[in-house]
């Protein structure tokens, strides 16, 4: 490993300043006493208190979390079973399956959103339902599942097939063999698929915007609606809090990974 020279350090520092500049704006605004984006007017914690009294904002946060959890759960189940089934495909059928599965990843989000909107309004008129919680959930499961497949499939390929057969030989039925052996082999892929789905769902604006209907709102949609008004300090406060939580979780898992790899080296 070569040492990193000063110009290189400087370059990386500049990139990081660029990446974090707009986030710093929100952290500053969340402590700003003035209800404005241009005037700084003393330090305050009041937005952090008021956020919890804002019913609409709290409701939208709850909606976002429920949607993110359910879509991560269902897409993990759907994606894991699909990955196992797909593993048994060969040649052209596998290629076709994979290509169709990747469509939501490759297709521009706005096209996916628009297409789903057409789909839900068409069948909503036929079967008499309106867009809302269910349609957002279905849409989110749809765009999360391909990511689960992408993270579980490699684990299936790496797995030693004989341990599954060994479990069967030792008297497990297929279901037991799956839950007692295979599941643990695939677990890292399943967990990362779940986490990717959860975060993508939590952050999604475009597809939710097209499929949420008139009465259902997630956090990003509330943020969008408040963009046209002067900046909303409560949203800054709430986002800063979410951001701190996420960073802490990430740092902790990262540190744990590093410790684990250190132990392995010993």
């Amino acid at each position, binding site marked *: 490993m*070569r040492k*990193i020279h000063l110009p290189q350090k400087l*370059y*990386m520092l500049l*990139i*990081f300043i*660029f*990446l974090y*500049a*707009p*986030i710093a*704006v*929100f952290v500053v*605004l969340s402590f700003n006493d003035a209800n404005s*984006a*241009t005037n700084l007017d003393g330090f305050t914690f009041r937005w952090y208190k008021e956020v919890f009294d804002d019913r609409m904002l709290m409701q939208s946060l709850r909606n976002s979390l429920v949607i993110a959890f359910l879509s991560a759960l269902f897409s993990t189940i*759907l*994606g894991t*079973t*699909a990955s*196992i*089934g*797909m593993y*048994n495909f060969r040649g052209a059928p596998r290629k076709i*399956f994979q290509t*169709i599965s*990747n*469509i939501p990843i*490759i*297709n*521009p*989000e*706005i*096209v996916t959103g*628009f*297409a*789903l909107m*057409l*789909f839900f309004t*068409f069948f909503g008129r036929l079967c008499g339902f309106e867009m809302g919680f269910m349609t957002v959930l*279905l849409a989110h499961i*749809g765009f999360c*599942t391909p990511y689960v497949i*992408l993270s579980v499939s490699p684990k299936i390929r790496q797995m030693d097939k004989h341990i*599954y057969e060994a479990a069967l030989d030792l008297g497990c039925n297929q279901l037991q063999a*799956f839950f007692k052996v295979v599941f643990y082999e695939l677990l890292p892929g399943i967990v990362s698929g779940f986490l990717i789905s959860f*975060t993508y769902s939590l*952050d999604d*604006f475009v597809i939710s915007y*097209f499929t949420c209907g008139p009465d259902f709102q997630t*956090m*990003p949609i509330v*943020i*969008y609606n408040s963009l046209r008004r002067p*900046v909303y300090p409560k949203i800054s406060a709430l*986002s800063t809090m979410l951001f701190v939580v996420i*960073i802490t979780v*990430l740092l902790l898992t*990262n540190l744990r990974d*590093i410790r684990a790899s250190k132990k392995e080296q010993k």
Partner: protein
Amino acid sequence: MRSKKLALPYAVWMAAFTLVPLILIITNSFQDSSGHFTFDNLYKAWEYREVFLYSLEIALVSTLICLLLAYPMSYMISRMSEKTQSIIIMLITVPMWMNFLLRLLGWVILLQNNGPIDTLLNLIGIDVQLKDNDGAVVLGMVYEYLPFMIMPLHTVMSKIDKSLIEAAQDLGSNGFNVFRKVVFPLSVPGIVSGITMVFVPSASTFLVAQYLGGNKKMIGDIIEQYFKSDQNTGSAIALCLMVVILLFIIITNQFGDEEAVGV
């Protein structure tokens, strides 16, 4: 484990929620509001050809700038110790956890007249319009999608076998030749997938041009505009966008390993 049937639920799912919606986009593109066959929507979409070109231009410039910024960055990261690498990569992805709209608004505040950057520049006697021009739109796109370029580049570069580089040095290559003959060719799959991952979303994104470009419109903004008023024209424009993106992906895939794309 052996059963192909496990893929059945997802196959049904994809047919319902991926294929049928796309078919609806196609059928809606060729219908008027009362359901009769027509080409009118495509004519209307054609009227937006300049917006299309503007979007592709912005996306192309943003992709190039992302590549230029990300390439040296990824190379530097790939030469650090593994622990530092994973921390730096994590720090690069962290801003993406803050909602896209908020980060966009952050730039609006930073770049506005009498905003922090404008005030600083005025102090040293520079007076420029920072917001409401194409430069600001490109800045927004580069900001939004830079991590999507750094990550695939870093993935391929960190996998380059160090002994290949040492072998090239032993055989008498100088630093530049090591780069030209070893590092660069091996990083091509990362470049290809980075280009796709930046170009596709930046060509189709909406709101960025409206907020940073002074109410300019990109093709995503036009689709959003038709979302509630005229779904047939909206579908036709979405169909055209999809075809353009598909062509782009097919062309870029000619230059590299297609497995790397979309991961």
